[in-house]
């Protein structure tokens, strides 16, 4: 067995898989009118999600198929209450796969301009501007100093 490099599938989800993911994401992060926030199925965010699955594609597919199997068909045809109940069972029964769907979704949701601004971030990458961190109060170390040496001599 030879592991080839760059064997990462560049494939994409089928329309049925996309529909299931859309439905799951709508339950995970709905929009908030109060905060003026989009949900995870906002068209720009969901398009970003579909583009950015990357190395999670095989595990995500497995997760979506598990959900479809639990639903006995497309998740979207169930009522909203049934969907929510099923997804709650999925999350407690398959936390590993639920973690994949969550990761794929929040990775894109929390880099959306509107979401970043709303949680108090500047809409930019960390570099090259960086961030400020206060020095803090160095006098807090006084009690540690006055307690004195705590290492063991080894000679």
């Amino acid at each position, binding site marked *: 067995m030879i592991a080839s490099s760059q064997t990462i599938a560049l494939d994409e989800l089928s329309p049925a898989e996309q529909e299931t993911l859309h439905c799951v994401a709508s339950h995970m992060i709905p929009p908030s009118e109060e905060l003026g926030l989009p949900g995870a199925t906002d068209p720009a965010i969901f398009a970003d999600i579909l583009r950015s699955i990357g190395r999670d594609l095989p595990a995500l597919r497995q997760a979506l198929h598990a959900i479809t199997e639990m639903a006995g068909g497309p998740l979207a045809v169930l009522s909203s209450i049934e969907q929510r109940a099923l997804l709650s069972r999925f999350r407690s029964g398959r936390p590993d796969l639920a973690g994949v769907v969550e990761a794929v979704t929040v990775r894109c949701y929390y880099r959306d301009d509107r979401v970043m601004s709303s949680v108090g971030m500047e809409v930019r990458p*960390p570099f090259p501007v*960086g961030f400020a*961190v206060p020095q803090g109060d160095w006098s807090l*170390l006084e009690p540690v100093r006055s307690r004195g040496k705590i290492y063991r001599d080894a000679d």
Partner: protein
Amino acid sequence: MQSVTRNEPVDVLIIGAGASGAAIAWSLADTKMRILCLEQGDWPRSSDFPSTGRDWEARQSEDYSISPNRRGLAADYPINEDDSSIKIANYNGVGGGTVFYAGHFPRLHPSDFRVRSLDGVADDWPIDYRTLEPFYALNDQMMGVASLAGDPAYPPKDAVMPPIPLGRTGEKLGSAMNKLGWHWWPSDSAISTQEYQGRAPCINLGHCPAGCAQGAKASTDVTYWPEAVRSRVELRTRCRVSRIETNDEQMATGAYYFDPDGQERFQPAEIVIMACNGIGTPRILLNSASERFPGGLANSSGLVGKNLMFHPYAQIRGHFDEPLDGYRGPPICIWSMEFYETDPARGFKRGYCYQFSRGLGPVRTATTGLADGLLPWGDEHHAAFRRLFCRSAGMVSICEDLPEEINRVTLDPHLKDINGIPAPKITYRIGENTQRMLDHSVARGIEILKAAGARDITFKSPLPYAGWHLMGTARMGHDPKRSVVNAWGRSHDVKNLFIVDGSVFVTSGGVNPTATIQAVALYVADQIKSRIYDLFN
């Protein structure tokens, strides 16, 4: 053996351009010997690092994942870790693990070198703290370590430049430690806090473990390597070594490797130095088995690959009502050595340190919040997120792992890399002593966070994806039956073969290992230089 191209010979061949390979290359450069380093990966490009783009957190699960198996890039080799509860993290390229490390830079303590004499466990090192002290100091200068002199947990040591800021997180957790009367101190950090030897100061990008775009973090591609290359050390990248060759005198004659075009070549050398880390080095030594050395090269003791140590980690985090540093600033903050030295009342031998850390970016806040049950799906999601984001802080405990032969690196009989070289297979389980230590560190960590006023405290023990300290698989010692290399890194069996990476650790201590790995590499270089006329006797 099919015919392979034979290169011009060199005096010294170093295999691996990571933390230790860089340090020894730089130190040996002043001998004016012809020195060549073969490195399987490439030079990292800081303009490619995730913190330069809006997908800075996402890329840490993709091409900048710490797991080589997940990255699966051309520079990486696969690792069978199915039989290990802790998974391997590394970076394969110039700088090695230092490109991804957090730069938490503690030294071992004097007692770490004397664990058998002091605590009756494992073995003493054949060298001691005092022997390494000047090399620790030299390495601090070369790497550019930010620290505060006067830590009562260590013998006196100089600070090269001011420490990284405490920030709100350091204040909060330091105050809690004061309440409990427990030791804490700003961490020694391989991160420049001021202009230092052409490197720009830290601007708190917050993403040290995915490569520092600012160049403030001391990865060896920006510290030792530019100096070594200026001193005419040759560094050939994208060259993967498969095995070391020997002659009838039981001396190493050089190494076979695959060049960037996948062509096999032989590089003759007078001295061969292994610096491929605690997994890469035993892998190549075991793959160098021959009629002369049927059990693998330098392996008459049978210990090559055995005694693998990781430092199992526990992580304890809590949330606060007021905002802390969040995603800003190096994740590193302060450390505590309160539980470092053996105390029989604790029910385990040896100890651990805490590395306290700041908050998480928005994506990691969400993924960990969801996994920990603190962040719900549905309408409550947004309010809950706001209670977590920029309000978390915590610590990891870095627990001393005792050497056990059962924990080991072998060659996988089936899995191979893209050049057809057998992949390493890891067999590892956490020992009882370490488990008790992990449990102790979780309980004390919760106490600390409670004293700091935290709510929603969570912990993970052990952290599964934390196999980033790779030690012990070719240990040093005086007795050839119980060690692979001698007290100055030379193989007992093959007199011109040296090992300088984390493999040579006799015990792991309970702190991050890189300062010690590099101090050992500088010490071995010094020994080579001072013994140059009778090096092989």
